[in-house]
């Protein structure tokens, strides 16, 4: 039986990197006594896979990982037990059952993510017109660093939506294994486009949600694909 866990990461926990978040949850599973399944073999480890790792420095309201259960536990109990084992800055939001087939888990189903870019100081102002003219470009070319080289890519098709929310910039961008766009990169090209002297490090970044795409093309939050486990 497979389950999907949604959690929030905020406050000082933004300084904990992805690998350490995985370690943190392995220990949290034990503290919370979640009946998680292990791999076979000499050094068994928990069956657990994270979707779309969050970079150091970012906060999030919509992080996900999937686990394999060796026996059922109700959604309600699991959320409560996990939250009793959390530290400040980590909160489990939901625990749902997902279909058992392989393609239902992991990075493969991720399509898009929502982010907020929040100016660190007052006085960094943008308008919806700024964003509209930025998005009206047919091509937005940026240098993308890979492990071996850097290459120029057009990120315009990966930006689905951008709008102002108060002083913050909201964006919905492609995410997952096919195309994954970091919000820092979008802000960097926006600042360049608008000839602003600020840099992308003058913003906090907050992920709001991770989405999968349904057959009809609509986006759905990852936990929307699961069902509540009754006690």
């Amino acid at each position, binding site marked *: 039986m497979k389950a999907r866990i949604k959690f929030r990461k905020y*406050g*000082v*926990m933004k*300084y*904990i*990197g992805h690998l*350490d978040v995985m*370690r*943190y949850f*392995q*220990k*949290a*599973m*034990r*503290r919370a006594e979640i009946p998680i399944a*292990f791999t076979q073999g*000499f*050094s*068994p*480890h*928990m069956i657990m896979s994270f979707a779309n790792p969050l970079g*150091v*420095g970012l906060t999030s309201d919509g992080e996900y990982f999937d686990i394999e259960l060796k026996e059922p536990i109700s959604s309600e109990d699991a959320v409560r037990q996990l939250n009793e*084992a959390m*530290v*400040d*800055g980590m909160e489990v939001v939901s625990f749902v059952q997902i279909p058992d087939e392989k393609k239902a888990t992991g990075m493969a189903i991720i399509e898009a993510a929502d982010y907020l870019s929040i100016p*660190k100081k007052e006085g960094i102002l943008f308008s919806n017109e700024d964003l509209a003219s930025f998005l009206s470009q047919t091509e937005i070319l940026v240098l993308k660093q890979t492990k071996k080289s850097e290459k120029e890519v057009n990120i315009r098709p990966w930006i689905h939506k951008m709008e102002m929310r108060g002083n913050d910039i909201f964006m919905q961008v492609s995410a997952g294994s096919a195309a994954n766009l970091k919000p820092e990169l979008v802000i960097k090209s926006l600042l360049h486009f608008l000839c602003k002297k600020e840099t992308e*490090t003058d913003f*906090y970044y907050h992920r709001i949600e991770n989405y999968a795409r349904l057959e009809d093309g609509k986006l759905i939050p990852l936990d929307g694909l699961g069902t509540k486990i009754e006690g």
Partner: protein
Amino acid sequence: MRKLALSDEILLKVEKPARYIGNEVNSVMKDKEKVDIRFAMCFPDVYEIGMSHLGIQILYDMFNRREDVWCERVYSPWTDLDKIMREEKIPLFALESQDPIKEFDFLGITLQYEMCYTNILQILDLSQIPLFAKDRSEEDPIVIGGGPCAVNPEPIADFFDLFYVGEGETQYDALLEAYKENRRCGGSRKDFLQMAAKIEGIYVPQFYDAVYNEDGTLKSFVPNDPHAKEKIRRQVVVDMDKVSYPTKPVVPFIKVTQDRVVLEVMRGCIRGCRFCQAGMIYRPTREKNLETLKKYASEMLKSTGHEEISLSSLSSSDFSELKGIVTYLIDEFKGKGINISLPSLRIDAFSLDVMSKVQDIRKSSLTFAPEAGSQRMRNVINKGLTEEMILEGAGKAFEGGWNKVKLYFMLGLPTETEEDMKEIPRLADKVARRYYEIPKDKRNGKCQITFSTSFFIPKPFTPFQWAKMYTMDEYIHRAHVVNQEMKEQLNRKSLKYNWHEADVTVLEGVFARGDRRTSKVLLEAYRLGCLFDSWSEQFDNKKWMQAFENTGTDIAFYTMRERGKKELFPWDFIDAGVTKSFLYREWERAMRGEVTPNCREKCSACGAMCYEGGVCFEGKN
């Protein structure tokens, strides 16, 4: 939400920001307005090292059980943050409250190895606390030193207000009560130090004067304050089942050196190896009760969520309940995906059986610490391990499927000859030969015998405290002798030799047996930029040599002299249980190559019986 001492910009710039944010599972938050005493507990090295230390976890837990005390943690900022804090004048802070250390009542620093001494100065400096105790004002925290190096605190005596000599579980309550009492009465810093000086185990360096002979040796060491005791008696827990143990240890976010539940099963060691300071100063050997240990193991695994548990002691094979605790851990936790990390055990049927249950035989290796290559040398150091025992143990393991062995040795031991050095690779070769005695079709490819040597450093309160050391060149020469001889061995292709740095050895030797005058070398080295000296990539021997030269300090005086029977040592004012006359008897026996039986075989009247507990009274109640 907690406010951090460092800005977002700084935290995203430095390596591993998780070192500086606190918030870990089981870290303790309190309301600072509701406590009487704020205690900052420091391990003067980087977070990952400091967080792996059991002693601090014990004290952190013990202090925080008191409602009137809030104990927090602080570690050395790594070099990247160190630079930023100096540039931006950010005061060093505690992990929990993120408040500056200078606002605390106490700063306790654990002294685990000599090469962290420059980091003590870094901690004080970044905290904006005057480096010298004599320069501190009423507002500054009381700076306390403790831990194994506190048995010779003299090289760092000027930087500390007081030292707690011995195991922390016994006198801290008295010290904290004295602090509260003094504050209630409006007493000064000096008043408190005078009260503290009367407490057993507490040493206040400024209340003592050291006078030296013309040849540089210590002439006298006497109190200059009526409150100060002539002898400081090292503190020892008598009943290990009556002290607290941290059943909710702090769980770090980042991977640290000791990332597991640590179950301390006993203190002390019955063996009496003559080079080993821990084996002398933690006497008498005291065991914990099996039922208590079982309870701790379950509670700690539950409260931390760790996936591994290990046993801690100086010599686990000598623990009477070893079988009981190991069997319990395997039966109870192995099926729940918990790894049991075994300490190095004497090889016998039991240990091979449990090892094959908890380790992957193909990947794991066996460890032996013969410490010396020849039987003559092993008799000198009183290491009761014989060649027959090693070959028999290795043979059994090889037959059980293992093919990797690690051997640990020391070079530069007292009376060591070239022949003794050459016996090291020869012994490694004999272990390899034992492997190849197994028929080809029954063994698992080639064997891998890795042997390492460290250089011996004489430590206070050991029978070798009278011994001389060697020069750096001589140490390197000895390692070369071993390396050359290895190349002569039949199975040289199955042998691998590693040796330790020689320059750090000499320095460690100076400060291990240093006196108060060596503090100026530490200060000068720190001013020249020495920091994190136990990290080989940070260690800069040139700067250290410069510091000795600038302060006119002669290294040879501290390292190259064989001390005489009558010499007064800088640490002689400490009573560590074992008497100087016992240690000297052992030194003489060493020179004659005579072995001394262990505590369970025969009492050698070392002096530790004065603590009235442990192995000295086993079977006598």
